């Protein structure tokens, strides 16, 4: 591992030690964050999968009856029938904080109306009623799916990003700092020994000269 390009001085050593302590603490925190995020993610993704399968099956069924209806009555009449909706869906879009990720939280504020078929029954077949009613009961689920799926999407992104940060700390920054600290310590020790030896040599020379005189 490459060491940082710094001067081997005591001041550098101290600042590096501080940095190492911070990096280690940050690493631990990020690792805990990753664990918790994965746990949350696993809880959500299973719900998400179940919900999606359910919703997809229901939508397909609903669309099928809708297609049958438009085949029976002709697309023009159907389009006319559905173009003036009576129900209006009101949702409240908030955000929720999961491990510092802002994820959507959607509440349905206005309950769905009972009578949602905006056309006279004389012109269209009952398949359309069926399709619309089933889609209508599906809508809360669809909105829930939107919320969960977006959350999962954002969490997975954040988990990946977080993992990259943890790895950068664990495998690059911390070893680098440790290596540099070791290098500086050794350099300083070496200098000290050199100093001692010089002093001893000087003393020896002085002693010799005193003995000679």
């Amino acid at each position, binding site marked *: 591992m490459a060491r940082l390009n710094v001067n081997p001085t005591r001041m550098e050593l101290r600042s590096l030690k501080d940095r190492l302590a911070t990096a280690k603490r940050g690493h631990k925190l990020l690792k805990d964050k990753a664990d918790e995020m994965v746990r949350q993610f*696993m809880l959500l993704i299973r719900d998400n*999968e179940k919900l999606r399968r359910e919703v997809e099956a229901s939508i397909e069924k609903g669309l099928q009856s809708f297609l049958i209806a438009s085949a029976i009555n002709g697309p023009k009449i159907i389009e006319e029938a*559905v173009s003036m909706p009576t129900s209006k869906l009101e949702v409240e879009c908030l955000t929720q904080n999961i491990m510092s990720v802002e994820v959507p939280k959607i509440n349905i504020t206005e309950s769905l109306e009972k009578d949602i078929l905006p056309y006279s029954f004389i012109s269209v077949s009952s398949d359309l009623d069926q399709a619309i009613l089933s889609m209508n009961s599906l809508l809360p689920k669809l909105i829930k799916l939107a919320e969960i799926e977006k959350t999962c999407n954002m969490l997975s992104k954040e988990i990946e990003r977080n993992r990259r940060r943890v790895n950068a700390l664990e495998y690059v920054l911390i070893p680098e700092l440790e290596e540099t600290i070791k290098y500086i310590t050794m350099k300083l020790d070496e200098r000290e020994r050199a100093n001692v030896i010089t002093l001893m040599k000087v003393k020896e020379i002085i002693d010799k000269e005193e003995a000679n005189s």
Partner: protein
Amino acid sequence: MANKIAVIGDKNSVLIFKVLGVDVFDAGTYFETSNLLKKIANDYEIIFITDDIAKEIQSTIEKYTERAYPAIIPIPSSKGSTGFGLNQLSMYVEKAVGIDILNINK
């Protein structure tokens, strides 16, 4: 703005959503849809897109993953599901955990 939900897709698949009080947009070519999405992304909180179209404009959709809204969600079209939504899910799992532990495609 009252309505916060929109649906983009081919006419057969999305017309039914109109009765439910959801705003409906007809999808055209790849380029048109992508532009349409960019245009309405700030006006709606939830956008459902039929999965055959979602697959084509995936790169545009991915731009909106950083923010909480809009949530862009693939739904099956009248031709049936292409499995795009579930594939997306398994992709998320792979990204988060490393391997696809849900076995969605089984």
